[in-house]
């Protein structure tokens, strides 16, 4: 218990250190842009494919349940609410942990193992400002954007399933979706959660990577921790936010 509190405190102090290292100089903005490409843009394929399949599945499962009570045409509602409130932000964040969180932790771990972080410090360059902060900020910006892409592809997948496979009228599908999804309750919940998940998953990834043992094994442990701890924290935070805010 004491160790858990200690590590939460260390992560909190590390967040303060990251925030204090933000200068938004031209150099740092260029580093952030490069990292948004690396952790955000390069995660697009897995996010898009993941969203598409989730949309296909929830549409199919929702239709089977609704059909038993003769409400198949309300499929848009059954897709939209769980997608925006839960599945979109949670699954996008978990996929982010697997694709980008692991890569951030591995990069930082290898930088430590190959003396790159030590070299920065010896050149009087703050390694947190140079290599950690750009990755953290890129993650915080990328996760909500990736969540939006995930949801868009999920809706597209659900539409394909509903209209082309299950032969539900396209107007019914869009009508029920538009009438049931609320801007504040659903969209707001989706992107509030995505913002929190972005901070937590990125912070955990940079923390475990930056503090890894300077060995191959240390890098491997950090990579695993970024995925496991990041995913579990996303699920825990999802419960907390749902219980407290909505």
């Amino acid at each position, binding site marked *: 218990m004491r160790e858990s509190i200690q590590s939460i405190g260390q992560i909190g102090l590390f967040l303060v250190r990251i925030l204090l290292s933000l200068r938004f100089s031209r*150099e740092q903005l260029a580093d952030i842009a490069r990292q948004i490409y690396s952790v955000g843009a390069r995660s697009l394929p897995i996010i898009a494919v993941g969203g598409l399949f989730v949309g296909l599945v929830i549409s199919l499962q929702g239709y089977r349940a609704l059909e038993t009570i003769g409400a198949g045409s309300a499929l848009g509602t059954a897709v939209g609410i769980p997608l925006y409130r839960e599945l979109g932000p949670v699954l996008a964040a978990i996929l982010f942990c697997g694709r980008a969180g692991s890569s951030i932790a591995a990069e930082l771990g290898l*930088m430590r193992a*190959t*003396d*790159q972080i*030590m*070299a*920065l*410090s*010896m*050149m*009087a*360059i*703050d390694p947190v400002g*140079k290599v950690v902060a750009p990755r953290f900020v890129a993650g915080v910006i990328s996760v909500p954007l990736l969540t939006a892409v995930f949801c868009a592809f999920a809706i597209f997948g659900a539409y394909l399933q509903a209209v082309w496979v299950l032969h539900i009228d396209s107007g019914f599908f869009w009508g029920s979706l538009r009438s049931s999804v609320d801007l504040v309750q659903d969209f707001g919940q989706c992107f509030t959660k995505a913002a929190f998940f972005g901070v937590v998953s990125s912070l955990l990834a940079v923390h475990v990577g930056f503090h890894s043992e300077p060995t191959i094994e240390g890098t491997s442990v950090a990579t695993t921790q970024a995925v496991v701890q990041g995913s579990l924290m996303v699920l825990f935070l999802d419960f907390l936010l749902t219980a407290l805010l909505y």
Partner: protein
Amino acid sequence: MTESVAVRFERVTLKRGHRTILSDASVDFRQGSVTAVLGPSGAGKSTLLFAIAGELAPSAGRLQVLDEAMPQPSVRSLFALRRKMGVLLQGNGLLTDLTAFENVALPLRTHTNLPEPILRELVWMKLNAVGLGEAGDLLPQELSGGMARRVALARALVLDPPLMLYDEPLTGLDPIACGVILDLIRRLNDTLGLTSIVVTHHVLETLPHADRAVVIANQGIAFDGTPAELTRTADPLLRQFLDGEPDGPIGFDYRHQSKAVAHA
């Protein structure tokens, strides 16, 4: 501190955790000289270098670097002091996502506001000084071990620091690359008026290029003098180290080393 001393250890004790690496050690590194810091593996040569760079605070004694006491009171003042030092790490520490040119340019981009054409000119000058004027566009993974070491050397020199610290600059290099690196260290030291501290266990290769030699063994300074004095020594500990004898006061296995230290 006299003007001619760049780094002074005065009865300094260095510890890593509970393990004492150096105990009550006193030694001066004179300005303008190339000093070879020698000693068996695990003797504490790199620890001494990290203490000079401010990575490890002395547990006891006084350590002065370029007229400033270590440890520095804040990270800001430590970084200000480090701008006057160039450090060549054993693993080079080249950033793998940057080209050789950008690696060398990094300290200039961070610490100066030089216009881009002047910055580029300075970087090319440093790369030419280490014989790599044509290799600026290569990534670190495209460089040989010796070339990567020379890029790291150019990067360490790019701010024209008065003090250069080299941690095992010859490790993993073939004899030709060793000669090139040692010639560079000597030439740059003399032409730029630097003070160079070279931590190494490559005794035979390094001594001809050094002005002074310091040997660390058994938690202390076992020798401090000229390379000629070192090669003439009859001290059994130093002779064992210089001649590479398996038996003698320096133990090969860890337990033996600990016992030797305890009896010293």
